[in-house]
């Protein structure tokens, strides 16, 4: 199957060029479009103006229920992070000795469950809609990396609960990690190492990648439905496949 007729067409959609480097877009006094800062601002402004970050109009097909999953995933992540911050601030033993602490742990626990449920639904939704079409392959790939990092983050969360689950999961997981030769630098039996990774490194990576993923989605917009291809001025279809 040729690329032009497959769903894998991730060809870049032609973009009108922005203003030439060094040319001013404004005559306002004190504004200079030269230099690195101006170049970054031009690039950001060109790729992601505020009207795209916070759109007030969307294609009608975005009304489909499948688009809810991504938003709800982010909503769940908000509560994962909020409850995680409270648990981290109060210390690792707090939730074992305080009913309020246990309640916050439950919020963290169920937020994570919601996060995964909706992330998986979002992933399946994007797969069956072939969301990588028309130059969106990188968006798909960042989403998959997010999914994989989320799994490792949740796994380290289970390891630092300081209860029987964390003991058992750590002892089960060590053999798989050790078999890769990484057991010496990623010791699942080392609470201190897993704690630092779970409460800082992975959440930072996760948050940054979520922001990047959202920027990617907002920058290009949602992909057109399968079978309703985008036909640029050249007349060549780049969004293909779907029902014939």
């Amino acid at each position, binding site marked *: 199957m040729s690329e032009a007729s497959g769903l894998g067409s991730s060809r870049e959609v032609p*973009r009108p060029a922005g203003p030439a480097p060094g040319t001013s877009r404004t005559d306002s006094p004190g504004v200079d479009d030269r230099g690195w800062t101006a170049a970054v601002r031009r690039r950001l402004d060109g790729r992601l103006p505020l009207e*795209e970050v916070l759109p007030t109009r969307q294609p009608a*097909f975005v009304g489909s229920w499948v688009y809810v999953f991504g938003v709800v995933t982010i909503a769940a992540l908000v*509560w994962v992070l909020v409850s995680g911050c409270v648990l981290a601030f109060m210390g690792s033993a707090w939730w074992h000795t305080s009913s309020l602490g246990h309640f916050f742990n*439950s919020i963290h626990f169920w937020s994570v469950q919601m996060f995964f449920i909706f992330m998986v639904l979002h992933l399946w939704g994007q797969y069956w809609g072939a969301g*990588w079409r028309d130059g969106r392959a990188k968006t798909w790939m960042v989403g998959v990396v997010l999914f994989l990092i989320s799994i490792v983050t949740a796994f380290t969360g289970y390891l630092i609960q300081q209860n029987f689950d964390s*003991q058992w999961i750590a002892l089960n997981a060590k053999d798989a990690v050790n078999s890769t030769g990484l*057991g010496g630098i990623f010791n699942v*039996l080392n609470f201190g190492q897993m704690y630092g990774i779970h409460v800082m490194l992975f959440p930072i990576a996760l948050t940054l990648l979520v922001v990047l993923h959202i920027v990617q989605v907002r920058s290009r917009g949602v992909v057109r439905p399968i079978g309703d291809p985008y*036909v640029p001025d050249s007349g060549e279809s780049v969004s293909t496949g779907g029902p014939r």
Partner: protein
Amino acid sequence: MSARRPGIDKADYYRGIRMTPYDLIKEIAIATVGILVVVLILSAVLSSPDVPSATIQAWAKADPVDFVTTAASELSGQSTTAQYGPPYTSGSGSTQSIGPIEPEVWAGVHIPVDAPLDFVLQPLSQATVGDQTLASALNTFNDASAGQQAKWLNAYTNALGSATLVDNEVSVPSGSYGPVPILMSRLLSLARSGGLDALLLTSDHFYQTDYTKPLLFMNDGGYFVGLAQAQDLTGSQWGMMNETGRYPGQAWLWLYTLWYQIPPFNTASNGDLLVVVVMTILSLGLLLVPFIPGVRDIPRWIPVHKLIWREHYRSMTK
């Protein structure tokens, strides 16, 4: 419509598509509040699991014969941990490879564990203050040849098969065990007091966060596995995907855990490495879906998209 910004081509991309009003902030706000309500209800009604951690102290009190049997195997160097291999020991009891590919061996020992010394002799040597009998027994054991130590331990380990509890002490038929019964008896007492839990954490530093040694020691016994079996957590029960109680656990690990339930993974001595390799390949496949012919075309062949964009296709027909 306002003038198009440089670099943005959506007006062109969505040509022919009906545009409708959309309130992103409102949608996010509703989703965030909605999720909070659901999470609060689930937290209030179902709570979350928190089965207390197992301790060596509890083990020594609940099953002293199993504890002593495990300690004897550590001292004789016959335990799983003692023979594990990298990253803990230089052995090869648990190393895994695929043909010439031996990542564990290549990585080497990074977390050295000397089972006889770390789990038995070192903790006992720290408990000799005021216990001349123990100090003497330790000296006798340490001064004996390796062959003599092995004879004592073999005889004692065999005798443990018919061990009984007398006055809460592990009693074995009389035999030639040298100082081993005294060492085991004192280690059992130390464990029952909770002292061994602390001593296995001891390092050169005041603060402790590394539980590698006490966890490995507990895992060598039957008591800890028994607790897991009672909670339906063992590998044949879908292992670490589950968690204590009737909670969902790490359901997202279902595919990873699935391989451990089926041949050849559930019988192969290198099953962990095989599963890791399979999951790495599958993960790369998921990452590269947009570039894999066939896989990327399935959404066109199986028209789930007609359900996703039902309204859109209906409007196109009109």
